[in-house]
């Protein structure tokens, strides 16, 4: 408890100011106000467009079997490498599989893996960061130095090395992604905890004899979560890119599973059969667009300095 919580180098200050809660909107009315809604929509257009795009992909995840026109794994060697047509909207790949159906089913692979990674790193990173910030000392020092070391590698490079060392598979790829991503969450959580630790209500809890661990879980963690959740929401797109890049290199999700990155890799250097790589790439593009629009919108909404 001897560490100065608000050192000038701590990013805590900027973090806590940028995350003002949206419920403090001054002109929120309870009455249904059509003009107001329209104004709100126009003002937060990126956010809503992003949400619509993501909603569309979520619908694809849920309704993939209804939307897909073919079995994504079914090979049809007589119809290999066919250009897009009324029968095969996005054409067929080298094994005669329907690219459209594979792109649609791909939502069930790429999106959930990105979400799983985000949940895992948020939990792992925030627990490690909370321990480092709350208890400090040797363990805290070790955790934060490990975080520094991990951040000394460019993410994709370390992920590549780890994924190949432990062998290509879905679980190992998720593991590699978590290994690369946890430090940012740990740093954010630690800076949050350092601020909250010195709040008066924590001192009060301590003064009537609440055990340290209980203080951490009852008072500190619940108040430290918000920025991490926002970061997690903003990170999903980037993680999806990392996951599909690893699969593109053949170190993530393996064929024949219809993963977008792996599908792009199958279409690599087949310049004449452009459709094999183009459509899964467009799928990644639109998902990224959805996530980036939402994160732009959220940032705009949450950062009071951005409001004019």
């Amino acid at each position, binding site marked *: 408890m001897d560490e100065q919580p608000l050192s000038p180098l701590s990013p805590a200050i900027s973090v806590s100011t940028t995350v003002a809660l949206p419920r403090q909107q001054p002109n929120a009315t309870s009455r249904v106000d059509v003009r107001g809604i329209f104004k709100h929509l126009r003002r937060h257009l990126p956010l809503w467009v992003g949400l619509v795009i993501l909603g569309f992909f979520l619908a694809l995840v849920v309704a993939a079997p209804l939307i897909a026109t073919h079995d994504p794994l079914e090979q049809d060697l007589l119809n290999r490498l066919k250009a897009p047509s009324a029968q095969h909207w996005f054409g067929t790949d080298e094994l005669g599989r329907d690219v459209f159906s594979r792109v649609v089913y791909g939502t069930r692979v790429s999106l959930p893996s990105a979400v799983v990674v985000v949940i895992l790193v948020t939990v792992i990173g925030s627990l490690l960061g909370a321990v480092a910030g709350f208890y400090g000392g040797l363990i805290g020092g070790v955790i934060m130095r490990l975080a520094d070391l991990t951040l000394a*590698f*460019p993410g994709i*490079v370390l992920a590549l090395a780890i994924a190949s060392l432990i062998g290509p598979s879905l679980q190992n790829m998720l593991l590699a992604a978590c290994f690369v991503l946890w430090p940012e969450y740990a740093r954010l959580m630690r800076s949050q905890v350092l601020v909250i630790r010195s709040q008066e209500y924590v001192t009060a809890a301590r003064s009537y004899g609440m055990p340290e661990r209980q203080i951490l879980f009852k008072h500190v963690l619940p108040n430290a979560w918000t920025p991490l959740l926002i970061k997690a929401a903003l990170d999903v797109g980037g993680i999806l890119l990392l996951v599909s890049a690893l699969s593109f290199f053949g170190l993530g999700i393996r064929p024949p599973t219809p993963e977008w990155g792996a599908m792009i890799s199958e279409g690599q250097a087949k*310049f004449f059969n452009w459709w094999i790589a183009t459509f899964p790439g467009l799928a990644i*593009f639109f998902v990224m667009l959805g996530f*980036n629009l939402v994160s732009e919108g959220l940032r705009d909404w949450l950062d009071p300095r951005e409001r004019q």
Partner: protein
Amino acid sequence: MTQYFVRRLLLTIPMLIGITLVLFLLYNLIQIDPLTVIIPDVGFKNPQAVENAIREWGLDKPLPQQYLTYLANIVRGDLGTSFVTRNPVMDDLRTRLPATIELAVAALLFAGVVGIPVGLLAGFWRGSLFDRFWWLVSLINACFPPFWIGLVLLTVFWYNLDIAAGPGRLPARMDYPPTVTGFMTVDALLAGRWDAFFAALSHLVLPTIVLGGYTLAVVLRLTRAAIIEEMRKEYIRTARSKGLRERTVLLRHALRNVLLPLVTLLGLAFASLLGGAVMTETIFDWPGLGQYLVKASINLDYPAIQGGTLLIATTYILVNLLVDLLYGVLDPRVRDG
């Protein structure tokens, strides 16, 4: 001043040792027989080679001592032998590094030349049509998976329209100029080969756009944020209230102060370049570090993965060191604070 530099330099040493430790532990945790990392498969039939390797890398010694041997070997420049190329990893890395640097410099130039002026103006004219247009461009740009957009550009501009150069550093049938520096453009000039020089330049165009575009988003966003931050300051209000023209306020007052935060940008941009190079080089068959690392990862070429990762992380740390030192030179508050 000297104290700041010395302190910053000393802080780098544990970092460098740390990354070697991480790589060493990674290998030992996953229980790969270290011998397979050091000698190619054929060497196993030769008891003499096995024994030499055991002695050289201290494999009969306890783990901490093995680590020290590993460190000593790195210092001597011995990173083991690649399974695939059968060359010492150090030699492979040395021949591939210039290709990556050449591409990275071109990409950094592209990102800087486009990103810094556009970011400055977008922040200065915040909320204008110009600002919104570039917001949209950089948003869309940031959504393209680099490994896909490279493929699309190749398909359209090389395969279909034939107005851009294809993969590789030179056309397939062209003789390579003798290697002096490893930078294709420089080597071509040194050999007086203008045809090779222009061919090398044209082969740089598409990969530069892909890799530079990947970095552009970072550059643009940071520059814009920096100028917005700067324009809020009191001295800008003073300058405006004196009746100075907006152009003078931007160029004479804000710009000078905004250049400083832009130095940090160099470090961040470099990080995204190294990450982007891995994807860009694969698509464009660019014989650099990124492609080497990807091939090594696919072929489970452990010594090459280990050496390549080590080199990239070391470069990254050294660039950050350089950025910090530069910052200290430019801003007295940093070194004295």
